[in-house]
């Protein structure tokens, strides 16, 4: 006993005790902050930066709910992480922006907590197809932002803009294209079907998809780069190394505004309209805050703000926003878009993936 009492107290122990008591004192404020906060997952990089700068502060100002933004990877990596975490009762983010394919896949495992439209009054502003529903009618997600993938060219190499996706098939463009590497993010099957087969309905049957794949195989000699990483293509497009391809309308517009020799064209068949939806993880305990957030994001003013500051196309009806014609053209187009057949990438995912991989690798 005396031994313990006489034991000299080490400096480390004193420091440790100090830290422990300090954090104990700090505890109440942490708890308080947690009452009114929400974790939002948005794509990392440019998206997250723009949201942190322009969008989230407005929401916090309006509602008093603090936002902790989480950078999520593109592709399905985030879906996998959310699913694994939900199985363990965790939510790395309460609300996440999800791609439509991931949205559908998450639905099949009931990963998304159903949303109550009565608490999202502004959802009435949305264009119809931006409300994602479970097969039984429950609301699984709400359209957050939309964006276009268009035909992009380097203006030094192509003085006149091509007006059709058919330019990809032109033998004159051998070894000049940069295309996205996956069926489920390039949507080239839809482009092929719309350009040569009279619309994406042609993809209803496996024979139709097979025919589209065969037509698409003719593009292969023209492709220099099948990219997964956007930076890789963007750089090559700007330098003229790879002077044509498919890329994001908004990012290309920003680069052109910075004086880069690039342009984005909506082909006469339409640009590819992709979108992200807000979803709420079933493991989240912040249901109230999540509804408040999604409601806030559905306001025409906020959607217009995003179009101006982030460069996304609005998910609310155009006439509700105060976007000028020029601002609208910067993010969207009146040419009817090619809307991807997301259903194919869930129901026939493996078959299409196999055929696609054989097409480009083989």
């Amino acid at each position: 006993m005396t031994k313990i009492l006489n034991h000299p107290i080490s400096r480390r122990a004193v420091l440790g005790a100090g830290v422990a008591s300090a954090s104990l004192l700090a505890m109440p404020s942490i708890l308080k902050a947690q009452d009114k906060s929400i974790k939002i997952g948005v794509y990392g990089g440019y998206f997250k930066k723009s949201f942190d700068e322009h969008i989230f502060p407005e929401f916090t100002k309006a509602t008093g709910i603090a936002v902790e933004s989480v950078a999520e990877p593109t592709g399905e990596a985030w879906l996998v992480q959310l699913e694994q975490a939900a199985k363990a009762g965790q939510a790395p983010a309460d609300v996440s922006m999800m791609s439509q394919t991931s949205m559908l896949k998450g639905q099949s495992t009931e990963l998304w907590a159903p949303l109550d439209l009565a608490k999202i009054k502004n959802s009435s502003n949305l264009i119809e197809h931006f409300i994602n529903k479970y097969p039984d009618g429950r609301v699984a997600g709400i359209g957050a932002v939309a964006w276009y993938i268009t035909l992009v060219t380097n203006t030094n190499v192509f003085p006149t803009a091509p007006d059709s996706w058919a330019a990809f098939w032109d033998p004159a463009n051998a070894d000049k294209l940069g295309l996205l590497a996956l069926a489920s993010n390039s949507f080239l099957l839809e482009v092929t079907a719309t350009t040569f087969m009279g619309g994406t309905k042609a993809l209803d049957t496996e024979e139709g998809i097979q025919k589209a794949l065969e037509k698409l195989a003719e593009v292969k000699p023209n492709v220099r780069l099948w990219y997964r990483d956007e930076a890789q293509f963007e750089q090559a497009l700007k330098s003229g190394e790879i002077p044509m391809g498919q890329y994001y309308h908004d990012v290309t517009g920003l680069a052109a505004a910075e004086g880069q020799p690039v342009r984005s064209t909506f082909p006469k068949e339409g640009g590819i309209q992709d979108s992200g939806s807000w979803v709420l993880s079933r493991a989240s305990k912040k249901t109230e805050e999540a509804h408040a957030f999604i409601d806030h994001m559905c306001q025409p003013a906020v959607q217009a703000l995003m179009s101006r500051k982030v460069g996304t196309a609005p998910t609310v009806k155009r006439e509700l926003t105060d976007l000028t014609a020029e601002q609208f053209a910067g993010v969207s187009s009146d040419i009817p878009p090619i809307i991807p057949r997301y259903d194919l990438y869930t129901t026939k995912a493996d078959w299409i993936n196999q055929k696609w991989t054989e097409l480009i690798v083989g």
Partner: protein
Amino acid sequence: MKREAPKSLADYSPLFFPGLMLIVFFVVPFSTMIAVSFFQRDPSGFYTPDFVFSNYARFLSLFFGKVLGFSLVLAVMVAICCVVIAFPFTYLLTKRPRKVQTIWLVCLLSVLSLSEVIIGFAWSTLFTRTAGITNLFVAIGLMKEPVALTPSFWAVLTGMVYQALPYTILVLYPALVRLDPTLLEAARTLGASPVRAFMNVVVPALRNTIVATLIMVFVFALGSYLLPQILGRPSHWTLSVLITDQAIYQSNMPFAAAMAVFLVLMSLALVGLTLLVGRKENAL
């Protein structure tokens, strides 16, 4: 001195920590992967625990056979290139003064701090038509006009050799430093030229080191998935690229796991074969 056999539990205690590490970092993850490779894939979502062979069945096709073959050939070529370049280099390095050696080794270590992404992008820029090294060749009159060297097989090979070379040198260095200099002196006294002495004395004396290094680089190169994507065409994508596609982009974990198990088994088999051949030759 006779070594006593361990009697009590306490005598075995030094084994606990390495054993635990092996279980936590190898046995558990690898077993999980094997288990997942037999799970049932749910195309619209994730997977359900099951015991099916469909993931392996899908892999057994000419298409994946070709990709696997390419990956193995690429890894072997990277291993051979690395050792062919690194062995003479390291040998010459050990002949330099201590200070020079240290500087070289520090520089090589600094290359290791570069990530695969940086290496990939740096080489892809160097190989471009608009800003690459061919512009330099044009400037000094070696070429008529700049050309793009990427994407190509050689670009992939160059990138991967560059990435693996520092490891190769660092593995070879200790063995070459400890090489008995009298062996060479004897060869030279008997009239062998420096090149002949190197080929006939140094190389055979370090045969086991060379084989071990080849295996290490081979295994290292087999896992590369970023460089083939950045520097190659789709036909140069390795099996690791397709595994990543399945795991990350298709969220088809069972199929990805089955491919990974196959890749591990194939590389273990090749390593085993190499060791077996080596042992037989040694016995002769």
